[in-house]
Every structure is written in C-alpha cells, then in structure tokens.
C-alpha cells in the first residue's frame, strides 16, 4: 500500500478519532485511582474532540496546509513541554504516554496522507502496550477490544479506499461509507472470546531478566537495629539475629500472620480489626504474578509455648545485591517458579516470596538471609515497590516440596512438650495404618480438612491458639488453629514440622492474570520435613492444597476466582450486598459453564442430539435477527411518521413539500441522501439514475406548487399541478414507506382540492 496516498475520504477523520479515544481508554485503565483515570480520559477525549473540530475548520480555510501545520506544531510543542515537565516529576512512562497522545493530536490535525493515519495507529498502539504493562484492571481489556475494533475499522476503510481508487468505474451515486469493518471485528471477537476462555495461557518467559523498580536513593533506617558486619560469617551463616526476632512481630516473636500497613489510611493493619473494618481488611495489599500458585512465604516459626508460636533466634548473612540482582546457590528443583510482586500498601521488611529463591531482583543494595531461608529487607517495603524472583521447588506426588540445602536440626522441629497425651493418641490413631512419614502427614492433613470447619470468628484471637479446645471441642477456627494443630500432630508422630506464615495467593484475576492479594489472604500453613526436604501441607479447608492448579484456562480461572470471591465475601459478612452479588455471579457462571459442559458432553455422546440444539440456536438467532430488523425499520420510519403526521394538517403547497420530503426519505432509505448544496432538480436526477421512477414533470410541478410560477395564472392551475404531484405514478416504487406517504397525501389533497 502506498503510504503517501492522500486521505481522500472524510470518514478517515472519525476512524482516526476513535482509534485515539480507544487507545486513551486503554491507557487510563492503568491508572490506580478511578478519579484520576476518569478525569484523564475525559480531558483527552475533549482535547481530541477539539482537534477534530479544529481539523474541520482549518481544512475549509484557503491556506489549509499552512494553518494546519501551524496548529499541529503548536500542539507538538505543548506536548513536548508537558513531557519534559512530567519527566521530572512523574517519571519516564507517564511522560512518554502524554507525549504520545500530544503527537497523535498534532498528527491528527495535520493528517493529509495515509502515513499519518498509520502513525496515529502506531502511537495509540504504543500507549496501549505501555498501559498493558501497568494496568491491573479488567477495564483495560475493554479498552483494548475497543481499540482493536477502531484499528480494524480504520484499516478496513483504508483497504476500501485503496481498492476504490484502482477501479475503472465510479459509482453513479455516492455509496454509504460502510466498510464492513464492524462486522469483521465482531466476528473476530466472537471467535476470540472462546479461545481466550478455553485455551490455557502460557506463563511468562521473563527474557531479559527479572523486573524490579529502581533502588531508592535515600535509604531509611532498617526495621530494628542492624547487626554489625563482624557478626556475619563469610562461608556460613554466623550472625545471629536477636532472640525471638520475629520479623512480623512486635510481640517478641509470637506467631503473626502477614501484617501489612495500609499506607493510604496511615493505620496499622491488625487482624483484630477484621471484624470491625472489613473494608480495609479486604483491600488489595499487593499484586503478584506467579507461574505457580505457591504461597508467598514471609516467616517461619518453630517453637510452640503457652499456646503461642515463637521463632528462635537464627543466624543470618547479609547478601549484597549486584545492581539489584543476586543468584543464590540452591539444591536442584525441577519446578522453576517465577514470581513478581508489586506492593500496593506499605508493608514491613519481610520479603514475601515462594520458598527456595534461586534468583532475586530487589530494589535495594543488600538483604538479610536467615538460616531457615527467611529473607528480611534492610528497610520497610513501601507501596509501589516491585521485585521479582525465581524459586526452585520439586513436585513430589503432586505436592510442592523444597529440597533442604543442608542437614536440618530435627530436634528443633520436634519439640512437643505442650502436646498432651490426648493429642498424641489422636495423632497415633489417625496414622495407625500409614507406614511412611509422608502418608502419615497426608492423613493428618486430610483429617483436619475434612472434619474441621473454617471460620473467621476466631480471628480476633490471632496469635493465640487454644489447641486442645480446637482439636477436641470447638473444631472450628481460622488458619492458625489448623496450622498449629497439624504441626503439633506431626510432631506427635515424630515428623519434624514448622509453621509458615505469609500470603495465600488464592486465585488470579482471570482477566488480568494477577493475583490480587488482600489483607484477608494473610495465612499460616505447615511445612513438614520428610525425605530430606520440606513438604508443604495445607490443613485449612478454606484454602486449596499446595499443588499445581490443573487448568490454566481462563474459564477454569473464572470458576475458581468467583468461587473464592463468594466464599470470602460470605465469610466476611454473609448478609452484605457484595456477598449476594458474588454468590449470584458465581451461580450464574456455574450455570453457564454447566450448560456448556452439558452441551459438549451431549455432543460427544449423542451427536444426533445436536440437530435440535442447532435448530433452536438458529431459531433464536433468526428471532434476534428479525427483532433487530424490526428495530432498525422502526428507527428508520420515524421520519416518515413525522411526515405523515404533518400531512394531516397540510395545505396544497405544503403537500408538495411533503411529497418532496417523502422522496428524500425514500432516497435516504436507499443510501441516496440529498447533498445540501444540490438543488431539488439535481436530487431528482440522482434518484432517476438510481432507478427511482420519478415522472419527468415532477420538478416543474414541485416548483409551481411550492414557489408559484409566472406561467401559472390562477389558483386552479396551481391546484391542478399539485394534483399532478399527488397522482405521481410511484405505486411501483419498491419503497413501501413512500407509497404509504403518497396515499395519505393523496387523500389529504382530495379533501383540500376541488376535482
């Protein structure tokens, strides 16, 4: 295609405008704040609208090229200035996006050839790609689909204009500007949606390294006192953290699940607040991408005393990061797990990660690694921080398994002084038939998952686990109760175990692919030392087992996401509107999926049954089609109805005008709209060329009846002419609406005029 061909058709203007607006919509979906997104979008749409008006007014001027270039240059200069300002204040990407939009506007005002339309398309696409990396909202997909529609529409128009240019013949009457681009994009969308829903999505390759934000320039004081370097060993961890140095705990190492601080509100998140402040508890704390649904582990606890978990002091090393990256030697794990975490709220210094980090990219110069593989940053993690990592795990019989790098002090993870004989006997009875440690662990896990109930009611007592009461009386509790119970039961049958805390990833948003980790996803689970490594166990029935999710299909993800959403909202407040909405959405989706599954199953088993189904679908489709036709006809008939109502009160002259209007309505129905500058005579010629049987004397009759004429000497002649108009032989006209109009007009004139 010749990219220097002129933009001959006016339709290019609207197509380019839609491309810009759709690109704008996609870009602003990346804004975190809804108000900023809305105001930014409206501002740019208004600016683009202004450019469109400007383009029209400039083009009609005599010195169009010079003036449009002047305006375009002015817009580009303003865009460049804003780019420089934003570069200093907001960073490269927002500044670049603003500049791209300004360039689009400038090119739009000056566009004269196909290359300019393509430039606008490319600039909008650039904005779209930038926005895709930033966006965490499903609205982006709406914007992107809109953009694709607009872009395909522009390309379809381009193709049509290109082909029309190469034709020998030009249409005798101007054809409507439909290109079929909308129909094409709709078909593409209808095909793409099932593919998107049912074809598994590939995991990210992360070529070119892991992603992270730039290191902070001004380092803040680390959380807690930093240990002197002398305490660190070069070859082996020799440094020791303070006793009971629980990273999350202000309570001298007592077990805490994740405790993010909600930076926006300036208040410390506390699980105690869950019941009182559900809104904040359910706020998103971080976005995570993960190739596997592995926990984001924060800390580990090994000692259970006084119904509380404690973390014994651990030696650590301070790892120096090379330009924000480090590789950590690790025992082999066949499953490479890539995770990328973006914090939305301020959190404490704990690094949330999949166990078994082998590569890390983190925006700081160093990080502490404790002997039990817990990582602590040197300063609290602030909202906006992004870090990525790669972990190595192994799959043992479908469960995630972390191969231990060094020998584990088993005694440390076996201490079960507090375990009563009742608990020990329970553990022994549950594992009596199991021979291996792994089988025993799984039996205990399944016992808790099957016979105990998950509830939020006990969350206010977080950090405190009344083990005996939970196991033998209430049998209801939150994750800590389950984790504590399983860990102690495992120790009772001589399996070393520890409690891990962190975040459960839950289910990814099926549209964005991001795990939206909320405050409520703070979680505790168990790691059992079996066969030289740590096996992850999930005793809480509310949470999925720590194993690879079966299907990466979007449909399956939607299934799980809605299920999870409904469960969470029901747990938080069963009577709330959000819980009802979530339940309805889940049930609707289940019904849809079930129906689809039934159809597919039936199709497989009883292919012949497809026929009635197809007939039904065809019937529904036909009904929809005819309904759409009727709606379109009803819409088109509005102008005719208006003519008819006016015909009821018309005089002879007005009747002539109405007849002419009816002809115009008929012409419009055929796509032959009267051009404003065309005289009525020229319009009638156009109709005749298009095959509308208009009598030759119609224009003369119209002129006489409407405007009077020197040749008409008296009113009788005029009335006769008007009658001639009414008696137009248009009954054969294919337009039924025109025939109806004429019939009404004829009747009206019979009443008005003497025969």
């Amino acid at each position, binding site marked *: 295609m010749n990219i220097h061909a002129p933009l001959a058709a006016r339709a290019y203007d609207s197509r380019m405008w839609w491309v810009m607006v759709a690109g704008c919509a996609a870009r602003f979906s990346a804004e975190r704040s809804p108000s900023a997104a809305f105001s930014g979008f409206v501002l740019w749409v208004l600016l683009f609208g202004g450019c469109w008006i400007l383009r029209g007014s400039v083009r009609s001027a005599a010195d169009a090229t010079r003036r449009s270039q002047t305006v375009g240059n002015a817009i580009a200069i303003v865009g460049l200035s804003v780019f420089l300002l934003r570069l200093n204040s907001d960073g490269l990407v927002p500044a670049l996006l603003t500049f791209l939009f300004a360039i689009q506007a400038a090119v739009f005002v000056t566009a004269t050839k196909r290359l300019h339309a393509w430039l606008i398309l490319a600039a909008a696409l650039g904005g779209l790609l930038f926005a895709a*990396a930033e966006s965490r909202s499903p609205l982006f997909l709406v914007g992107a689909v809109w953009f694709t529609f607009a872009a395909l529409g522009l390309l379809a128009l381009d193709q049509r204009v*290109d*082909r029309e240019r190469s*034709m020998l013949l030009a249409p005798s009457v101007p054809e409507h500007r439909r290109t079929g681009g909308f129909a094409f*994009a709709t078909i593409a969308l209808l095909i793409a949606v099932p593919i998107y829903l049912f074809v598994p999505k590939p995991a990210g390759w*992360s*070529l070119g390294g892991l992603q992270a934000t730039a290191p902070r320039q001004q380092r803040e004081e680390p959380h807690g006192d930093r240990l002197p370097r002398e305490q660190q060993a070069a070859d082996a961890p020799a440094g020791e953290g303070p006793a009971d140095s629980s990273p999350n705990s202000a309570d001298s190492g007592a077990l805490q699940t994740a405790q993010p601080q909600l930076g926006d509100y300036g208040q410390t998140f506390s699980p105690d607040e869950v019941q009182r402040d559900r809104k904040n508890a359910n706020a998103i704390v971080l976005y995570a*991408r993960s190739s596997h649904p592995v926990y984001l582990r924060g800390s580990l606890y090994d000692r259970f005393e006084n119904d509380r978990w404690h973390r014994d002091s651990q030696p650590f090393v301070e790892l120096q990061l090379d330009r924000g990256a480090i590789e950590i030697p690790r025992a082999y794990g066949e499953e490479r797990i890539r995770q990328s975490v973006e914090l939305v709220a301020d959190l404490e210094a704990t690094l949330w990660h999949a166990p078994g980090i082998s590569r890390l990219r983190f925006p700081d110069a160093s990080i502490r690694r404790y002997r039990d593989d817990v990582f602590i940053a040197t300063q609290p993690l602030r909202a906006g921080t992004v870090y990525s990592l790669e972990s190595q795990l192994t799959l043992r019989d479908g469960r995630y398994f972390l191969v231990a790098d060094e020998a584990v002090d088993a005694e440390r993870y076996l201490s079960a002084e507090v375990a009563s004989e009742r608990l020990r006997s329970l553990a022994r009875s549950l594992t009596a038939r199991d021979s291996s440690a792994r089988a025993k662990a799984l039996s205990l896990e399944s016992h808790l998952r099957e016979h105990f109930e998950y509830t939020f009611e006990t969350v206010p007592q977080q950090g405190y686990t009344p083990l005996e009461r939970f196991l033998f009386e209430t049998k209801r509790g939150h994750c800590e109760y389950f984790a504590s119970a399983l860990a102690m039961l495992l120790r009772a049958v001589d399996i070393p175990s520890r409690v891990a805390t962190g975040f459960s990833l839950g289910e990814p948003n099926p549209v964005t*692919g991001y795990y939206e980790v909320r405050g409520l996803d703070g979680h505790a689970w168990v790691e059992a030392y079996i066969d030289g490594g740590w096996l992850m166990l999930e005793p809480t029935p509310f949470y999925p087992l720590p194993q690879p999710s079966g299907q990466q299909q979007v449909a399956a993800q939607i299934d799980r996401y809605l299920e999870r959403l409904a469960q969470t909202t029901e747990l938080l407040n069963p009577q709330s509107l959000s819980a009802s909405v979530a339940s309805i959405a889940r049930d609707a989706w289940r019904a849809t999926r079930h129906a689809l599954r039934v159809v597919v199953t039936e199709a497989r088993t009883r292919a012949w049954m497809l026929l009635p189904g197809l007939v039904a679908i065809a019937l529904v489709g036909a009904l929809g089609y005819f309904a759409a036709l009727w709606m379109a006809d009803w819409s088109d008939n509005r102008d005719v109805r208006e003519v008819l109502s006016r015909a009821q009160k018309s005089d002879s002259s007005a009747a002539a005008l109405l007849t002419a209007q009816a002809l115009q309505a008929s012409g419009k129905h055929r796509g032959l709209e009267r051009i404003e500058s065309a005289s009525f005579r020229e319009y009638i010629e156009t109709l005749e*060329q298009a095959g509308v049987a208009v009598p030759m004397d119609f224009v003369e009759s119209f002129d006489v009846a409407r405007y009077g004429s020197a040749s008409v000497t008296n009113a009788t002649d005029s009335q006769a002419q008007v009658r001639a108009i009414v008696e137009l032989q248009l009954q054969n006209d294919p337009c039924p609406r025109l025939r109806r109009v004429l019939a009404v007009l004829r009747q009206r004139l019979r009443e008005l005029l003497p025969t």
Partner: protein
Amino acid sequence: MQVRSLPLGAVLIAWIAVTALIALNRGIDLLWGVTILLSVATLLALVLPKFQLRGISVRRVDFPTTAVVGCAETIGYEVEVRGWWPRFGVEIQDRLQGQERAEATAFLAQTKGRKTHTFRWTPGMRGCWQLRDIALESRYPLGLARSSRMCAAEQREIIVYPDFVQLHWLPVRNDAHPRFEHMVSPRRGGHDELFGLKSYAAGDEMRAIHWRMTARRGEIVVKEYEHHQDRQLWIVLDLAEAQHVGRGVNGSCEQMIRIAHSVAVKACETGIPVGLVYRVADQVMRVPAAADRATYLRIRDVLARIGLHAQLPLVRWAQRFREQLPSGGTWVIFNLGDAAERAALERSARQRLAAPLFVEFDKRSYVEGVQQAGDVPRVRTHASARGIVSTVARGADLSELFKP
C-alpha cells in the same frame, strides 16, 4: 531513502509479534487477550474473502451497445446475494477496456439481496469490446488475501467510437484535375462508377436502391458508387505496428484514429465527400468517398474497430498496390516524420493524381512521453510545393491541425 509503500500484512504480523512477545515475556494476560483477538482477526482476514464470493451472482443491466470515448455512460450490474449475510468489498472485473483479462472495474462496498449497482463509465479507449463472463473478486476486509470467481454472464459487444476534435481548417483541393473533367457525373450526387452492392443502412439514398437485387435477396440492397470528382478527401491509414510509437491512448496510433475521425467529421460538416483507405490481412480496404451520413457512420465504425498489425507499412504497399488506391482528390496521409518516407508517399499520391496532406507525429514526444518544462506541445504546420505537413506533438491541441 523514502519508503513509498508498506504491505499491510507485514505491518499486522509485526503488530501481533510485538504484542505476543511482550505478553509472553512479561506474562501479561491482558495483552494475551489482545494477541488472540488480533491473530483471529488476521486469520479471518485471510479466510473471509473465500466466503464473500459464495452464493453470489452478477449480471449486466442497462449496458449501452455503443459509446464514445470521453462521454460518460451509466451502466449497471445487478448483484444477487443468497443468504442473510451481506457481502462487503466485492469487486467486479470486466473487460470494459478491451483487455484479454478482466480487470478491476467496480467496487461494491456492501451488497445484500438483489440489488442493482449503477456506475458512471467514461470510456477512455476506442474499440469493439467483447464482454464475456464476469469475474468477481474479494479482498475483504483487509486485503491480506484475494479470492476470485468467474460468473457466467450474457455475452455483449460494446463499440466505443473514437472521440474527435472540431478542426478549424481542412485544406482540401477544390479544383478539378483535367483528366477527370470529362468524367464528372451528370447525375445528382456525382455517382459515376459502380463500386459494389451493400445492404441498406440508415442515410443511404433511396434512389441508390438496387430493386432487382432487393427483390431477389429479400432485403434492401443499395448500389455504392465511387465519386469521381476531384473535391474529395481520402483518409489513408497506416496500420503497420512498426510505423507507430507510444502505447494506449497516448500512442501515435490512437492519435491517428482521433485525427482521422476529426477529419471525417469536418469533411461531412462541410459537405466534402470523404473516404477511408487502409490495409488489413493483406487486403487494401476502402470505404468509398461520399458526403452522406451513412458513409460517415461506416468510417466511424471502421475507426472504432481497426487496430495495428504486423504488416507492410503504407510506404511499401502504396507502391505495390497503387492500382487499388483511389484516384484524385486530397489524401490525408499519416507518417512518423521520416523525410524519405514522406517523399515516397508523396510520389505515390502524385502518381494517383492526388494532393497529399501529411500528418506527422513528433516521434520524440511520443517516445519520451514527458514534455520539457515550458515546452508547450503544439501542432506545427508548414506548406510547400510538395504538400502541407502538420507535425503533431503528444498532447498538442488537435484543433490547430492544418492551421496555415
């Protein structure tokens, strides 16, 4: 280096590749959706043209049988689409330019049901075009793929007559040659020698009807006479390929036809009997000179149909078959500007007691095509004892032909 064109397919593939690579590398599910949509759209753009041409038929309606170069005609194609799905971007390919292959003729943005699409056709090339089957083609929606199908259509013939310009001058010799003075016909109309018989055509004189032959054949047959009067004009065409330069509308051949037509029109308007001589298939053909409308129509018809052939040039066959050439009058002779050939042709004309009127083509302007800046193409005429010579440059105003 300036990029003149970009293939849309390459642009789309690059677009998909960039989106897909970013989506895969960063694991951005949102872009994965966009990639799927774009890929589906691209595949659809490759497949859709096939479906566009199914269940569609086309026929010609309101087609004229004759047309004139440069005069707009309205023609129509009735397209019938079966099924509820409208067809977009259907191209009709026909032979309105006389090509062997059907070429892009009309573009239908959208069609559905039975619909007649009318178009303005301004013929650019004279000829007799045989319209056969119509080809349909579709590149909808993005032009990435092309699908075509032949549609059986009724055969038609369109004669496109050449256009003409109004000549201001036509220097025809007005005096009688002594040799023919005694042979001037005493009859009205100047018929003095029977040339042959032909079927009656509009414009033929009633008195020329050959009643006996008419009765025998059952159709009206008229006698053709050759005007043996000196004030007559013969257009002598040279249809040898080697004697012409340039191609198509701007070639010297088409210019020759246009000039011949203009000369015939001017002669008819001024009442000068005009005839046509040309040679095809080793035969010297003649349209006998006359001042009536039938002769003009016949000349116009011949001018519309004839074309160049690989044959002897006029300068050769004028000598070899001079007995078959007309006697006396004024000959309009076309030449490529070669002086030796002009002299030989002049000799041939003189031998037949005719006055030559040369129309020569400025070979350079026809070969090179583009005029130099400030070089206005024009007709230059000079008269000498050997005859009048008008040299025509490409793009010159032909109304100045033979301007003294």
